[in-house]
């Protein structure tokens, strides 16, 4: 549902069905709503059978990259004599994204159940739910739910009386966007600085504590119990454009839009209807100007592109962007794109872990140039410099934070070049905005 709004009949409420329903937070309330039947079923299957169901469903990672979940799970070698780990990525810090927060606040047991199934499927006895430190309420709610699940014997050394050990621990982060990157998260979990690691080795070979590890996003795991109870065919049928994108997806919507919030739709939903019908269109008296549809790390879309998009992994790519994390950021015609792009670059400069020169220097340098242009002190050469810096920042570093900083810059200059030129030629922001917040 478009929480905190009333659900729209065109939404498909699977993950969001109980958002806003406080009773669903408790174990008793969750069981009444069908909770833990999927885990019970899963523990009666072999790990391989579960992996096959998930593969068959077409579920892909909801954390940003869209990697097929069943395939990721199949990389974990059973019987290698090593402890395996599942890391649940609840670091949710990508600007524009706030869906995992709602899953954890309202349906904590959905995540515990999904994590327990995932752990069993990859041969892990321990799952760590890494939650960003700022999420104080989700941390409280998840912590209480984990306690309940232990007390009821659903997880722990004898999960649901099956003799199988599945420990689930909540781990609190301490403020750092980069810890959402999978290997940075593992370092952080280990008690280290959250620096991303050079790959290979990949986590399935040597991840957390040097052991085979799978990392999944909150929303990915929360979908798994539904796939097990209702079947892969049911899940796969929620696909209205590209057959490679299946299931329901939560989109977080923010910025200049009438009804911000979370909305759940089936893959392939028309983005135009989504923006105007579900989310109520632009604020009164305004027009939409641009959309960043998948969290701040994906290319900016013009409204022509956005309105022609079918909302799935392939659909966003076909219209010049990516689905990413599903964080939809909308800008209306009162906003200065140069200022917004400068602010996003500043975000990445602030969050760079500073291991790689191209990222450390590039994020800081592009921020300075963008803020200069925004202040009316830029030159036309600055635009070329920004594009060449962006090129050097792409595909050259340990992780893709560097690329993510370049993405809005390049797409911004390519699609809104007139706004950049107006700042340079007019020696001021034509909209009267100033970059330094």
């Amino acid at each position: 549902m478009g929480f905190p709004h009333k659900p729209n009949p065109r939404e498909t409420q699977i993950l969001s069905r109980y958002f806003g329903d406080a009773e669903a937070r408790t174990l008793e309330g969750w069981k009444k709503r069908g909770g833990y039947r999927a885990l019970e079923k899963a523990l009666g299957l072999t790990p391989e059978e579960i992996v096959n169901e998930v593969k068959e469903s077409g579920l892909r990672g909801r954390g940003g990259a869209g990697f097929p979940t069943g395939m990721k799970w199949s990389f974990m070698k059973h019987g290698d004599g090593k402890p395996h780990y599942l890391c649940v990525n609840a670091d949710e810090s990508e600007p524009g994204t706030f869906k995992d927060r709602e899953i954890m606040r309202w349906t904590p047991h959905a995540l515990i159940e999904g994590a327990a199934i995932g752990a069993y499927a990859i041969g892990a006895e321990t799952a760590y739910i890494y939650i960003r430190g700022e999420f104080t309420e989700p941390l409280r709610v998840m912590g209480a739910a984990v306690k309940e699940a232990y007390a009821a014997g659903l997880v722990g050394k004898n999960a649901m009386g099956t003799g199988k050990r599945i420990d689930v621990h909540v781990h609190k982060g301490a403020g750092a966007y980069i810890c959402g990157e999978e290997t940075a998260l593992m370092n952080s979990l280990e008690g280290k600085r959250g620096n991303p690691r050079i790959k290979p080795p990949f986590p399935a070979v040597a991840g957390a504590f040097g052991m085979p590890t799978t990392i999944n996003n909150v929303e990915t795991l929360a979908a798994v119990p539904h796939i097990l109870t209702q079947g892969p065919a049911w899940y796969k049928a929620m696909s209205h454009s590209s057959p490679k994108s299946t299931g329901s997806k939560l989109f977080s919507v923010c910025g200049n839009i009438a009804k911000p919030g979370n909305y759940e739709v089936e893959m392939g939903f028309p983005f135009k209807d989504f923006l105007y019908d579900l989310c109520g269109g632009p604020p009164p008296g305004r027009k939409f100007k641009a959309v960043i549809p998948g969290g701040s790390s994906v290319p900016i879309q013009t409204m022509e592109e956005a309105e022609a998009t079918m909302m799935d992994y392939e659909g966003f790519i076909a219209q010049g962007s990516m689905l990413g994390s599903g964080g939809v950021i909308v800008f209306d015609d009162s906003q200065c794109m140069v200022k917004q792009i400068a602010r996003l670059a500043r975000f990445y400069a602030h969050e760079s872990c500073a291991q790689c020169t191209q990222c450390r220097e590039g994020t800081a340098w592009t921020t300075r140039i963008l803020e200069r242009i925004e202040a009316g002190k830029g030159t036309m050469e600055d635009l070329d410099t920004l594009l060449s810096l962006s090129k050097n920042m792409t595909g050259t570093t340990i992780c893709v934070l560097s690329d993510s900083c370049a993405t809005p810059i390049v797409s911004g200059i390519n699609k809104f070049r007139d706004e950049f030129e107006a700042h340079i030629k007019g020696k001021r922001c034509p909209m009267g905005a100033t970059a330094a917040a």
Partner: protein
Amino acid sequence: EHYEPVFVGEAERELEELLTHYPTKMAALLPALWIVQNARGWVSEEAMTEVAERLSLTPAYVKGVVTFYTMYHQHPVGKYFIQVCTTSPCGVCGAEDTVRALLDQTGCGELGATSPDGRFTVVEAECLGACGFATPIMINEEFVESVNKDNVTDILSRLP
């Protein structure tokens, strides 16, 4: 000045329980630092040394980790430490006005400064993961959504 250890009684038991969650002692570092900050309001050099001893690490190592993360305070802060999101999605919904109102009404005057009465410190934060509820702020451990220049007075007046 005499340093009172944090890890005695309940806090010590909490740490022991935490150690059972991980295959290494080092992994309890972030949680241990949280225990310190919850107890003392910030993480002093002496506390870093205490944590280091508990987890068989060096104080320099602990400091290196503390400085990586934005949420551990290395200095005492105002009674109310207020973080305001100013990243773009909140920025286009009036976060700058929220910041201005907070700075004016707390008496902090500028970002990072503590108010003359020692009650408030206001800092800018990057995306707090609640962008649909602009502008979210954090007052210590309390998360407040939809703060704007008009309801700041009301929110501040509710603080004891």
